[in-house]
C-alpha cells in the first residue's frame, strides 16, 4: 500500500501538523467560518488559497461580492468519524495506481462515501447560520451563491493540484449549500488529485479543504484584465477581454472576446477590437446556468461601455498596486447593482509572463543626461505616432 495515500485520524494528528492547527485547537476550535471582510492574512492556512485571495481583496477594499469561508477545521471534523477513515483507507489501500479504470472507480467510491456521510452537526449549524446571515446581508431569501473549493497545504506553496477546485454556481438555499460544500470536500479525491498526490509523494492528510460561499454575481458581461500590454509588456496599459454574460464563455474559448487596451495613466481607450460574440452563459428564468445564443443586434455590440472599461482598468490597477506586481484579474459587471458600483472583482492573480522577464538595462546613455542626449540625436528612436 502506498504510504502517501491513507487518511489518518485527524483528531490524533492535530497537535503535530503545524502551527495553524495548534492555533485552531487553542483559539477557534469551534469557529468554522471566516467572513471575507474580517479575514486576516494569518488565517490563510485555514481558508485555502482561493478564499485567502478573496479575503485579501476585501481587505484592500476592492469590490468583491460578499461571502465567507468554511474553514479546513470544518473539513477535519469529518475525519473524526472513524468508520469514514477506515472506509477511505481501505479503498485507497487496494488501489493499483497504474490502473486508470480502477483509479476512477476508487475515486468515485470515495467521493460518494464522503458525500453520503452527514455533515457533522456543529458544521451544519455554523454553515447554516452563516448562509442565512449572508442572505440577510444581501436582503434576499435563498440567495444564489457560488460554492467553491479552496485547498490548502501547510507545506506547499501551491495547493491547486490537490483537488479539482470545483466551483458550483447558482446554489440557492441552505440544504443545497451543504450538499455542495461536501462535494467540494470530496473533490480532494478526484482520480486526478489522487494520482497527482501519489506521483508527487504528497501525503493526503496534509492537504485540507476549505470551502468558499460567495454571493453569486449575475453579470451583464465579464472577462479578464491584465495590468500590462501582453504584446510588449508596457505597464502603462491594461488589456481587457470582455464578453456577454458569465466568464465561462471567455475562459472556455467558446467566444472571441472583445479586446481593449486602456491607458492606465491617461484613462483613455487606446485600442478597441469588438468581435462578433455568438453565445453567452447566463442565468435562465428557471434558475440554471445555460449557454444561449446572443440576439443578433447584441452580437457585434461592445460588451462593455467606455465608462465600464475605465472602472475595470482602475480596479485592475488597484489590485496591481495592492499586490505590488502586475496582475491578472477576473471581473464582472453585475446586472443588479447601480452604475458606478457594478464592476466587481472575482479574482486577482500575479501576471507571470512579463513579470518573470528580466528588465533590460536602459539603452546607451542611461542616466547620464548628456551621453543620452547625444545618443538620442545620433539615432532618434521616435517615429510617427504609435499606431
Amino acid at each position, binding site marked *: 500500500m502506498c504510504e502517501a495515500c491513507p487518511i489518518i485520524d485527524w483528531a490524533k494528528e492535530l497537535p503535530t501538523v503545524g502551527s495553524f492547527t495548534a492555533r485552531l485547537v487553542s483559539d477557534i476550535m469551534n469557529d468554522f467560518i471566516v467572513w471575507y471582510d474580517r479575514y486576516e492574512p494569518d488565517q490563510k492556512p485555514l481558508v485555502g488559497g482561493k478564499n485567502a485571495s478573496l479575503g485579501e481583496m476585501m481587505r484592500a477594499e476592492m469590490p468583491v461580492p460578499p461571502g465567507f469561508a468554511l474553514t479546513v477545521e470544518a473539513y477535519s471534523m469529518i475525519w473524526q468519524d472513524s468508520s469514514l477513515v477506515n472506509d477511505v483507507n481501505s479503498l485507497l489501500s487496494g488501489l493499483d495506481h497504474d490502473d486508470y479504470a480502477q483509479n476512477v472507480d476508487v475515486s468515485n467510491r470515495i467521493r460518494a462515501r464522503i458525500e453520503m456521510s452527514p455533515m457533522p452537526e456543529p458544521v451544519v449549524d455554523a454553515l447554516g447560520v452563516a448562509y442565512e446571515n449572508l442572505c440577510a446581508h444581501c436582503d434576499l431569501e435563498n440567495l444564489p451563491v457560488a460554492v467553491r473549493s479552496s485547498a490548502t497545504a501547510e507545506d506547499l506553496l501551491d495547493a491547486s493540484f490537490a483537488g479539482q477546485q470545483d466551483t458550483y454556481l447558482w446554489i440557492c438555499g441552505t440544504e443545497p449549500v451543504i450538499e455542495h460544500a461536501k462535494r467540494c470536500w470530496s473533490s480532494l479525491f478526484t482520480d486526478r488529485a489522487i494520482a497527482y498526490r501519489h506521483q508527487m509523494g504528497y501525503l493526503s492528510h496534509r492537504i485540507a479543504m476549505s470551502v468558499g460561499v460567495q454571493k453569486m454575481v449575475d453579470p451583464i458581461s465579464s472577462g479578464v484584465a491584465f495590468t500590462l500590454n501582453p504584446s510588449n509588456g508596457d505597464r502603462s496599459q491594461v488589456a481587457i477581454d470582455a464578453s456577454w454574460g458569465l466568464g465561462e464563455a471567455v475562459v472556455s474559448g467558446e467566444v472571441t472576446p472583445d479586446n481593449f487596451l486602456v491607458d492606465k495613466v*491617461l484613462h483613455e481607450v487606446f485600442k478597441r477590437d469588438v468581435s462578433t460574440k455568438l453565445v453567452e452563459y447566463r442565468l435562465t428564468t428557471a434558475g440554471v446556468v445555460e449557454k444561449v445564443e446572443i440576439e443578433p443586434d447584441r452580437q457585434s455590440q461592445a460588451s462593455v461601455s467606455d465608462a465600464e472599461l475605465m472602472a475595470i482598468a482602475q480596479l485592475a490597477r488597484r489590485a496591481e498596486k495592492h499586490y505590488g506586481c502586475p496582475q491578472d484579474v477576473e471581473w464582472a459587471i453585475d446586472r443588479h447593482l447601480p452604475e458606478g458600483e457594478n464592476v466587481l472583482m472575482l479574482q486577482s492573480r500575479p501576471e507571470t509572463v512579463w513579470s518573470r522577464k528580466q528588465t533590460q538595462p536602459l539603452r546607451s546613455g542611461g542616466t547620464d543626461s548628456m551621453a543620452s542626449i547625444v545618443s*538620442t540625436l545620433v539615432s532618434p528612436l521616435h517615429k510617427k505616432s504609435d499606431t
Partner: protein
Amino acid sequence: MTANRFESPFELNGPEGVDGWEDLYSPSSSFGEARRNYEDNRFWFWDSMHWGHALTPWDAYFFEVALASLSQMNSRHYRIPPADGVDFRILYGYAYLSPVGVDPSKIEDRVPQFMERAGFYFGNWNDLYDRWLDKVKDTIARIEALDFSPLPEMEDLEVVTGGVGLGSGFELLKSYHQFKDLVLEAWNYHFEFLNLGYAAYLDFFGFCKEVFPSIPDLGIAKMVAGVDVDLFRPNEELKTLARKAIDLGIARAFDDPEHVSLDGAAGAQWQAAWDAVENPWFNFTSGNGFYHFDKIWKQERSIPYGFIRDYIAKIEGGEDITRPIEAITAERDRIVAEYRDLLSNDEQREAFDSKLGLARVVFPYVENHNFYIEHWTMSVVWQKVRELGTTLAKDGLLAEDDDLLFVRPDEVDQILWDYYANWAVNAPTVSAAKWGPIVERRRAIHAKLSDWKAPKALGEPPEVITEPFTIMLWGITSESVASWLGTGSDDGITGMAASPGIAEGTARLVFSPEEVGDLQEGEILVAPITAPSWAPVFPKIRACVTDIGGMMSHAAIVCREYGVPAVTGTGFGTNMISTGDRIRVDGSGGTVTILD
C-alpha cells in the same frame, strides 16, 4: 503617382507669367546652376507649417534670417553631432528646406564639443534663460525706439546748439541698418535655446518610448508641459477683460466687435484695464508672425473684441471659463507619479527623474519663445516696416504705403540713399520712377505665385528620415514622405495623435486668419496649420486637423491645452477634406475619416 523621388527643382513647371520672380528674393535663396549638383541631390520639403503662402520680399527676408539663425546654432555654436544647418531655398515664392547632416566620419569628433557647449547651457539654463528674457526685451525696446518718421524741413535747433553734427538723414539710414541687425539679433536669440530644448525633450521622449512602448506622445507631452505659460497669457487677459466688461455693465458694447464704443466712466475704466495689459500681451498675431498680412491684436482690435464678445456670451451663459490652474497642476503631478510608479527599477526611476527634470527646465523656453519672438518681436517689426513704407510713400519715394513690401530689404538701401541725398541737396528723387513699375510687376507676379499649388517636396528623399529636427519640429517622417509619394498605405488620413478624444462633425477648411471667424459652433477646424492666437475659437470647435505639425507644433500644444481632439501632420488633410464634409477625428489614434 508612385515613384521613389519627387520632381527636381530644376524640372518643375511653375505657374505661367511669372518671369523674373527670382528678383523678389535674395540670390542666395534661389536654386541655380551654380550649385545644381548639390541642390539636385538633396531632399527638399515645403515648410508649409511656417510658410504656407507665397512670400513677398520682406516675408522672404525674415524666413532667411530665421533659417540662418537656426542653422548657425546647430553647426557653429553647439556642434550638434549629427546635424548641421537646415538649408533653405525659395522656389516660385515658396519656402523649401533641406536639413544638412554631418558627414558620419566627423560626428564622433563633434561629440566632445557638443557635450561641453550644450552641457554648459543645460547646466546653467535658468540663469541663461533669465538673461535671455532681458536680452530679448531690450532688443524689442531698441526696435521700438527706431525712428522712421519723414525727414524734417529743418533740423531742430538743439542739433546745432548741442554740437551734434549729425542729421536726421544719417539717423534714418543708421536706424534702417540697425533695424536689419536687430531683426537678425532677435532671430539669433530665438534659436539660442530652441534646438537644445528640443534635444532634451527628445531624450525624455525616447526614454519614455523605451520603458513604455505604447505610451501615447500625448502622455509624454503632458508630463513636460508647463502650467503657467506666457504663450497662453494673451487669451487669459481677454477672459479677464470680458469679465471686467460684465462687471462694469458694458458687456453690450462688444456685441458688434467692429464698432465698439467705450463711453463714460465705465468705458474709461475698461480702457484703462486694456491699456495695462496691451503691452506686451496684445502684441499677438492672428497668424504666426511670419507674414506681412498677419493681424496684430493691438492694432486690429475687432479680432480681440470678437473673442471678448464670445467670452462674455459664455460667462453670461453660466459657463466657467477660468483656466483651472490647480486642477491642471494636480493632473500633471498625478500623471507623472503614475508613470513613475510603473517603472521597474531604480535605474529607470533615476533616469526618469533626471530626464523629466531637464525636460521641464528647458520647456518653458520651448513654449514661451513663441510669444517673445513670433508674436511680440515680430509685431513690433512689422509695425516698423509699415512705418517706413508710409514715410517713403508720403515723401513720394514710393507710390503706396505697402509698395515697400515688394522691395527687397537690400534694395531699400538704394531708396533710402536716394531719399537722403536728395533731401540733403533739396532736389528731385528717382525712386518713384524706378521702383513704381518694378513694384507693379512684382505685385502681379506675387499674385500668380499665390494661386499656385506648391509641391510638398522636391528631389530624392533619404531612405529613412533620421534627422532629429525634421521629425521633431516638422513632424516629417519616412511614413509621411511615403504618403506624399503615394507609396504609403492608403487607408484614410493619418497623422500625429496630438490631442486625445474622438469627435464627429462638419469640417470647415480655414486657410487664413481672416477665415477663422467663419467657424461655427461645433464645427471641425481643418487647416494647413493653426496659430496660437486662434486659441479663443477652440472652445467652440469640436476637433482640429492640420496638414503639418509634430507633437510640439503650435497646433498640438494649443489643442491639448483646450482639450480639443486633434490630429496634426496629416500631410494633405486640406486636399482630401472639403468644407461641409462630415468627418470623424480620432485624436487618440491619429486618424481622420471622411464619413459623407
